[in-house]
Every structure is written in C-alpha cells, then in structure tokens.
C-alpha cells in the first residue's frame, strides 16, 4: 500500500464526518423526503390514537436508551404532543435509570412549553426491569403527594383507569418486555410503541400478531407520522425535523464502500473459479 493511500484511509472517517456536517447545513433539497411513502404504519398509528376514548388515560412506559434516543426523539415528542392535543392524560413510568434521566428532561421541556400539568402524572422509577413490569400489572402505585384527577383515577382504579399504554423503548427494556410480561397479566390494553430501528425486526412479529396495536420504529415511518400529525396549539412541542441530505449522503457512502468491497470479492471468486476450471481442464 502506498503512503498516499494509507494517509487517505486514515483520513477517510474525518472526511466523512466533514461531508456529513456539510450536508447537514444544506437547505432542503427537492426530490429528497425522509418520510416513508408506505402509509400502513402511520395509518395504523393514527387508527390506534383515534380509537382512544375522549379524556383517555395513557400509561407511558418511557425507557429509551441514551444511545438511540436521538433517533426517536422527534417522533416521541410529536406523539406526546399529539396525545395531549387529543385530550389524553399521560401517566409516565420508568423501568430503567437511563429512561428516568431522559424523562426528567422531557417533563421539564413540557413544563417550559406550558403543557397543562393537570394532564401529566409522573409515576416515578420502578427498579427491577421485568420484575417491575410484573409488579406494575397489579396496579401502578401513585407516589405520595401526587395530586390531580389522573393521580386520583389511577390510585383508585389501577389499570382499570388506563385506556392504553405507549411504550418508548430502548435497548435495555422495550415493547417486547411489555408484550411478554404485562399484557398476559392485565385485561385488554391497547399497546402502542415507539422504538429505534434496531428493535424493529423483533417487534414486527408482535405487530403482525396483534399484540402491538401500532408501532413506529424507523426514522422514515417517524417522519411520515410527524408530517401527518396535527398538533394544534401544541405545535410548539414539535422538534425540527432532521435533514434528509446527510441521511442520503451516509447511505450513498455506505453503498459505495460496501459495494466496492463486495464487487472486488465476487470478481475474485469468479476469477478463482475460472482458474480452477482451466486447471481441471
């Protein structure tokens, strides 16, 4: 390998980061759209929200992980605003420490955006992961000092007061645990989930099987939902959508790098097979 090629390989990651940063600064480009044209996931999501009763109480299991949260954060914020705009009341619960840390920031953001605090209830952090989910099935415990109609309803009726659950999942504890540990222990509970793409393959069968009522698990489905969501006066809770140009650039770089290596490998295999055939002949 020449010195110049070695230097180029060393600098390649830094060049890629610079290119991505440059693409991020570009204005919106016609012909690019992060939102998926496949409407089924968004329609399923909207149908699940439409099916909620007025003034519904939604239990929000908020357990994203720090690494993948930026991927789903715009969608999570839009979903929370959408639910509040539809008149839902939200009871948040955490089963992971990371989720707790992230939720406190989101609650503070809602507070700054003057979301109606009477429609929000913080049930706190439950340690124990799956065991905590099993315990949650016997009725969420409302922290001492929690006031308001949501706290009263949940304290009185337990899961009877809850109309649906929205699970914001991460790598540690996701919607799959809710399906496996909570759903068998409670009466019919519509379960909606937002999860990073890494969890999509393991969640897709649950969506097809009906255990999950709706799922948003790719950046493109999330973007399609955000484009369709009407947040009314809570539009201020919406986060600026990520740009499509850096995504396109990253994908093209990946296709070129892997494609070049793959084509070289396949060409070498064909050459080797040709040599062998000639030798045998």
């Amino acid at each position, binding site marked *: 390998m020449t010195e110049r090629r070695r230097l180029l390989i060393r600098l390649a*990651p830094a060049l*890629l980061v610079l290119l991505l940063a440059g693409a991020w600064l570009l204005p919106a480009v*016609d*012909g*690019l*759209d*992060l939102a*998926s*044209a*496949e409407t*089924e996931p968004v329609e399923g999501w909207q149908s699940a929200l439409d099916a909620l009763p007025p003034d519904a109480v939604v239990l929000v299991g908020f357990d994203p*992980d*720090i*690494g*993948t*949260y930026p991927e789903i954060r715009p969608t999570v914020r839009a979903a929370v605003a959408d639910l509040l705009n539809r008149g839902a009341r939200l009871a948040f619960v955490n089963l992971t*420490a990371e989720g*707790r*840390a*992230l939720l*406190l*920031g989101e609650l*503070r953001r809602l507070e700054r955006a003057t979301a109606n605090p009477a429609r929000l209830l913080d049930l706190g*952090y*439950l*340690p*124990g*992961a799956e*065991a*905590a989910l*099993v*315990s949650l099935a*016997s009725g969420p415990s409302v922290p001492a000092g929690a006031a308001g109609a949501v706290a009263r309803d949940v304290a009185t009726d337990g899961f009877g007061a809850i109309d649906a659950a929205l699970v914001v999942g991460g790598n540690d504890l996701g919607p799959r645990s809710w399906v496996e540990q909570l759903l*068998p*222990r409670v009466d019919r509970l519509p379960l909606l989930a937002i999860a990073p793409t890494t969890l*999509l*393959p*393991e969640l*897709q*069968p649950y969506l*097809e099987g009906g255990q999950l009522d709706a799922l948003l698990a790719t950046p*493109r489905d999330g973007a399609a939902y955000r484009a369709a969501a009407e947040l009314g006066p809570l539009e201020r809770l919406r986060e600026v959508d990520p740009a*499509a140009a850096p*995504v*396109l650039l*990253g*994908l*093209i*770089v*990946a*296709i070129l*790098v*892997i494609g070049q*290596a*793959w084509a*070289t*490998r*396949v060409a*070498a*295999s064909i050459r080797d097979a040709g040599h062998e055939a000639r030798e045998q002949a």
Partner: protein
Amino acid sequence: MRRPTLGALVIVVGVLLLVDLLVVNASLGELAGLLVDAAILVAAGAALAGVAALALRRGGDLWRRRGDPVGATLVLLGIGAVLVAGLRPGAAGAADPAVEWLVAALMVPIGATLFGLLFVSTLAATRRSLGMRGRDATVLAAAALVTLVLLLPLAGPAGAWLSTVAAWTLAVPIGAVFRGLLLGVAILAALVAARTMLGVGSTND
C-alpha cells in the same frame, strides 16, 4: 457442586408464579407479589452493587497504577459528578437541573456519538470480513447493500417504490425469519426453565 436448596427454591418460586398467572386467588396473588417485590429489591441491590464494584475496580486500577488510568479517571469523575450534582445539600436528586444538564448536554450527545461511530466501524468491519473471503460475509454484505438501497430517502415514484419493497422485505422474509427465531427462543426458554425447575440435566452435573 450441586446446591439442592437453590434448585428447590427455583422450583417453588417458578411453580408459584406460574400458578398465580393461571389461577385467580387473592392469597396466592399476595404471595406471588411478595416474591416479585423481593426480586425487585434484589435487582435494585444488584444495580447498586454493580456501580459500586465498577467504582472500586477503577479506583483500584488507579491506586495500583494498572490498566487504563485515563479511562479509570474519567469513569470516576463521571460517577462523582452525577453523585455530587444529585446528592449535594439542597439538590433535588435525579430531577436536579445540574443532573439534567449532565444528561442532556453530555451523556446524550456522547452516547449518540458512540452509536454514530458504529457507522464507520461497521463499514470497516464489513470490508475486513469481505477481505477474509468468507461466503457468509459475501451474503451478509449483499443483503446489506439491498437494504441500504431500499432505505434511500427519495421522494416521488422512485421513493414510493423503494418504500413498498422495503415494507415487503420487512413483512415477509425478515418477518418470517424473526418470527421463527422468537418462537425458537420461546420454546428453548420454556424447555430450559422446565428442566431447571424439575432438576433435569443441571449444568452442575
């Protein structure tokens, strides 16, 4: 060495939780609830012990001048910063603005950056795997190429076609494989649990 007490405990707890799931009985429910609460306490204790062990290990590394001193210092500084921010007199614990700042301004960007670095390292790993001339790597890279093309964020008819094909691959081939995997894992977990509870083929044998 076999520990019959532990095995018996696992059997009793497992059967109790299973029966509680199937039979509606208030006393049984309370007993199962107690066991679940105990599991929660053990898990919380284990989490605390894990953090303490990490701090002790890194502190020991620094004290004995072994391992990675920069890494150990950063770990201890990180633990210390969050503890001081959350537990100092007058602080509001995890809801304290200083803790929230540490999470939002440091931990989230650092965590996302580490995930972002996976992009570069995965590309490098793919090239290395293909260089090793394995057939599996060739198939994996071909599948990755197809997936990457399907994910291109294009608008218009081309984007719509890519989205439709991506949805089909997810629902049919990938969905079928993962459904099979989930079923297999569930059956295996049930078998292992049953063997453990019945004391059959223990790993201690």
